[in-house]
């Protein structure tokens, strides 16, 4: 079994109103040193294979085909 984490973030230059709202809320809680917040998604995926190279290739395909919308999002794959 291989455990992996796929992280999806908005591309640079894509406006993130949710991140902005979170940023403002942090300011409201007294966290004064926050320069900016960008929000995203995390997927923890457990694969049945033990072949690391194959797992990475599969996860990359999953990111491209479903987990991320590559029009607006980037993703990274990390085998844990």
């Amino acid at each position, binding site marked *: 079994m291989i455990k992996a984490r796929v992280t999806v973030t908005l591309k640079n230059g*894509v*406006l993130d*109103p*949710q991140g902005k709202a979170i940023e403002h809320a942090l300011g409201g809680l007294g966290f004064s040193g926050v320069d900016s917040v960008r929000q995203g998604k995390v997927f923890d995926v457990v694969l049945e294979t033990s072949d690391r190279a194959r797992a990475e290739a599969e996860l990359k395909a999953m990111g491209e085909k*479903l987990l991320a*919308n590559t*029009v607006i999002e980037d993703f990274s794959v990390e085998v844990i």
Partner: protein
Amino acid sequence: MKAAVILLPGLNRDRDMIAALTKISGQAPQTVWQTETSIDDDVDLIVIPGGFSYGDYLRCGAIAARMPVMQTVREKAEKGTRVIGVCNGFQILLEAGLLPGALMRNASLKFVCREVRLEVANANTVFTQGYSQGQVIRCPVAHHDGNYFTDADTLAEIEANNQVAFRYTADTNPNGSLNNIAGIVNKAGNVLGMMPHPENLIEPAHGGSDGRALFESALGLVEA
């Protein structure tokens, strides 16, 4: 012309769409469930209605766009069959790659349910020929993720190809869409996606009928 309506779990405007198409075309549309892959040969117009397919899980329209019926929709669209996606249907067409760009969370972060004004930005499409160029029509919107976005190059290309069918008038843009985009067509001109709901403004009982000409156009009921 005969229409078909795609059905997915979580859509909620399907009955409105079926009623509108039935009233305007004079015959009930074929209904096609998400796992079916066969759409009748005599169907000239496929419509994906609005709602919240798959509860908007992952991203609006993301799961629906990958269901078996969408492969059939893609093949039919490539052969020239007309396709309309309204609201969630627009999101599904974008996620399926049948139209360029993406729809993001409204800039206000709020669900908007109100009437907007739309300018007919291109009256030379098969969907808008029943309107005049620049005509401003009323139309209801109801969505949380209608903020049209694409990269600068794609946006320039869409504009250069006159692919913007409808724009919100500047003072009624409900979601922050780039260039006030409310609806676009593909390059070939046979696939339309739009956030507003023309099916909810087709007869006096709705308080107006500004949406009717869109379906009359798509169904070939107006002179080109």
